[in-house]
């Protein structure tokens, strides 16, 4: 496909590309972090670390990973994402309540 940016002022197109590259760099970094976290998580379990300690850490690692996904991969950190963020937080809040319920009072 032809490059349409030709008709834009060159410096702006250049600027945008640069910006995209910058963002891509962040994304690669978050990817590396995610992989790292995954290694740590699996490593801890395989090494048989005490479950009392491991479970909160596992959950924490998962949440951080998901934040990376949402904010970097899915661009929630960028502007124009207020409403998506609001609705994701809404969903997360209901999700949290649901999970708390199902792990506590479901056992009567």
């Amino acid at each position, binding site marked *: 496909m032809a490059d*349409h940016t030709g008709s834009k002022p060159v410096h702006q197109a250049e600027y945008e590309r640069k910006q995209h590259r910058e963002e891509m760099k962040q994304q690669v970094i978050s990817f590396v972090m995610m992989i790292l976290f995954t290694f740590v998580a699996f490593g801890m379990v395989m090494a048989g670390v005490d479950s009392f300690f491991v479970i909160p850490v596992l959950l924490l690692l998962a949440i951080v990973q998901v934040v990376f*996904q*949402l904010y970097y991969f899915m661009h929630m950190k960028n502007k124009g994402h207020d409403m998506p963020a609001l609705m*994701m937080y809404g*969903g997360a809040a209901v999700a949290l309540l*649901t999970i708390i319920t*199902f792990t506590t009072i479901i056992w009567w």
Partner: protein
Amino acid sequence: MSHDDVLNPKQMPHDPEKATLEGKNKFLGFWFFLGGETVLFASLFGTYLALNGSTQGENTPENLFGLELVFIMTMLLLTSSLTSVYAMYHMKNHDFGKMQLWLVITVALGLAFLGFEIYEFYHYIHEYDFTFRSSAFGSAFYTLVGFHGGHVLFGLCWITALIIRNQKRGLNLYNAPKYYTASLYWHFIDVVWVFIFTVVYLMGKVG
């Protein structure tokens, strides 16, 4: 904006996925859908957590799950998330060819993931006689992980359809939002998987 501008834009804007009103709507609507999906998966996770002790015998999470396979699957899916980020990167740079290429790679990784998952299920059913019907734990496990697998399958079909449909005509303002939402969906699948491997497999193994 005339139809021609949408299908053959004279100039690609900065965010092609949000250049048209339809694009903006799709973008927002899809995010909201994901907000709803969050609750959907939370309900499934909740059910799983409530029932994962109801194993009715030897087929407990500790005895069943093998972490090697899950680790490979995790790597595949995480990587596919990155490749779809690359695809979107090229979309923003208006490089259609590269975008398609990265999406093809994404699909390939997704397929591999799905293959492993099917193998895993097959393995449980035939080696361990552990099925959807054997216990409440079985039902909850296959439902949760299966729902995720179903999402993967749907995502693969969707992205493949987009790749094929647009191969000849390139990026435009009509299909850019479609690509973008498909990639959001794909990331979300990855988000869910992060919790699955943590809550189901790792925590199951820890006991």
